[in-house]
């Protein structure tokens, strides 16, 4: 009985393979040769990690633009945040006949080759939020470079520690990151470290992973607060780490004595900004970032945006400057008690 099943299985498997081979002829000339100026361009928007507020707010802006421009927008990405998973999704979308793929690279190394290969198959590839090597994409929709982000974080924390004057900043600081292996965070850490040289009285004493888990972030922050008596500031540089670290400082009763900053959406941090635990939150307008990215994708698909352009008209955002192949969103925003309520994302 088992043996018969075995043979039937093998035969049927062969049949499936043969069948899929036969269907080859029907579908050879599909995706790549489609004219790019089809009425409804197909745009795929890839976040580093799906399901986190930062990217969900980007998606909000992207959908707004898509509705206005008549773009067939798909927003999807790895819920695990794995770059390898993201690479697989790009490959799949290429096969599905995407017109434009917009990538936010959690790790440029594994993504760049895939993006290049997508481009070679006639897909427009752009990056947004975080870039990959220039030859793997056409444009980069940039809110800020890793260096700018690192600098902004560092300057903000120094200012908060110094009570408004960065030069007064004195004491020890620590970083709570996602995983020790998180490519993005490590990039920022690199620039934070570099920028800290500007503040010789600030000393980086520890970097701890939170395993992208708020509970863990809270625990390590708590421990560092006690272990380093002179700790004055914490960089909490992942979406799970920031609320965790803020909560730890609050519960330890060190509000005002220890400053914490990081990247997060205003809505997530409003509570801590209002109760004084967090003085400043560093970010940019994520809704606008999603909006701008979708506009760029649409223009590329329709052929209205070409290499070498110096400005780009982005709907409600108005004229945006293009610096080479980098389209700039605008400035980093530091949210504080005074301005945070003006934003809802």
């Amino acid at each position, binding site marked *: 009985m088992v043996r018969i099943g075995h043979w039937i299985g093998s035969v049927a498997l062969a049949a499936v393979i043969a069948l899929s081979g036969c269907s080859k002829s029907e579908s050879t000339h599909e995706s790549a040769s489609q004219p790019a100026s089809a009425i409804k361009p197909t745009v795929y928007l890839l976040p580093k990690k799906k399901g986190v507020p930062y990217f969900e707010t980007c998606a909000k802006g992207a959908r707004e633009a898509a509705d206005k421009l008549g773009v067939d927008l798909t927003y999807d990405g790895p819920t695990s945040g794995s770059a390898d998973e993201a690479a697989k999704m790009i490959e799949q979308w290429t096969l599905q006949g995407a017109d434009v793929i917009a990538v936010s690279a959690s790790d440029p190394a594994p993504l760049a080759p895939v993006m290049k290969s997508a481009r070679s198959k006639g897909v427009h590839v752009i990056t947004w939020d975080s870039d990959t090597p220039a030859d793997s994409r056409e444009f980069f929709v940039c809110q800020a470079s890793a260096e700018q982000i690192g600098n902004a974080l560092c300057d903000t924390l120094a200012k908060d520690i110094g009570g408004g004057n960065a030069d007064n900043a004195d004491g020890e600081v620590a970083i709570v990151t996602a995983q020790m292996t998180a490519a993005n965070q490590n990039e920022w850490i690199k620039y934070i470290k570099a920028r800290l040289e500007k503040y010789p009285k600030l000393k980086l004493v*520890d970097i701890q992973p939170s395993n992208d888990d708020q509970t863990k972030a809270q*625990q*390590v922050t708590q421990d560092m607060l006690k272990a380093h008596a002179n700790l004055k500031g914490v960089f909490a540089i992942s979406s799970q780490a920031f609320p965790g670290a803020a909560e730890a400082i609050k519960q330890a009763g060190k509000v005002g004595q220890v400053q914490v900053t990081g990247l997060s959406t205003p809505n997530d941090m409003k509570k801590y900004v209002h109760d004084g635990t967090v003085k400043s939150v560093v970010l940019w307008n994520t809704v606008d970032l999603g909006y701008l990215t979708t506009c760029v994708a649409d223009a590329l698909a329709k052929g209205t945006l070409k290499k070498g352009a110096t400005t780009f008209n982005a709907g409600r955002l108005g004229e945006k400057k293009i610096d080479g192949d980098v389209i700039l969103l605008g400035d980093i925003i530091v949210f504080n008690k005074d301005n945070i309520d003006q934003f809802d994302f």
Partner: protein
Amino acid sequence: MDATSTISMELATPTFSQRLWQLAARREYGIAIVLAIIIAGVTTKNHDFLSGENVRDILIHCTQPLIVSCGVMLVIVTGEIDISVGSALALLTAVLGWLASPTHYHWPAWAAILATLALGAILGLINGLLVTLVRIPSIIVTLGMLTMLRGLTVILMSHPRPDGRAGDITDMPYSVRFFGIGKILGISTSLWITAIVVVFTALLITFTPLGRRIYAVGSNPHAARLSGLSVTRVKIFTFMFTGFLVGVATIVTQLATVTSGLGQGFELLVVTCVVVGGVSISGGVGTMIGVVLGVILIQIQSTVLIFLKLGTNAANWNQAIQGALILIAVLIDQVASRGEKRIGGGH
């Protein structure tokens, strides 16, 4: 007569189980000694380590894994395993957030908490039914649940709630958070709850018929059946109990923000703690004190490393140290029990 008649036992089972017994009795001492050494070592380097505040925080770090370990311990004692607890923790936290948050369903705290506990028990019931009635190996059932519940959590958290928002929930009412960060008689509520769970579990396994049956089922399921015990019911109970405790762990959380990324890897943490605490993966063996010590040993580690102030690159070795610690624990254990067997058999 005794000395010689012990050698008649058939090769595999009795000597092995005998060994396990002795081991279970010894394991607690072993962990306690390792713990003492670690604590003494770090305290000499940093006197603040044993400050009241730090001890309290370390204990609070242990609350969630310890509460869930109480359930997982019983599951493992019956010879099964539950690796779905990490995802279940995420899902239950998300549900609690949905129900209790004022900008969402805004249920009263007690109702939201009861619903979360009930849902936890139901998840456990599903595991238990699949394991006992459908007879799927528990590692497969809970592996499937681990994956599924994680997906469900992301879907739930990205689904627009009644106020049209999606994403993190930042406005958990204090009436719910009281169970995590509140204080009763100057001691954190979460510690009270954990203590209740631990004492309850300890009493359950030592002094109640049900507790004895859990061990009986793990020790020899065939015999348990012949003794008229319902193996099915006992196993379903342990899974439900675990699910319920995941619900309890949800409530003692220290966190203010509910996100979908909670509890990643929590299941492995719990299984590691339980196993390091001397609970035998083949069933029938395990003590409450061992599990408590196992949880503390594993959880204390990251605090110890931070207190040693090893600098900014040290954290890269955290995981390697954890792995090595487990390997060493297992190795010492095995070697010790071998020595024991040689000496013990001969008297």
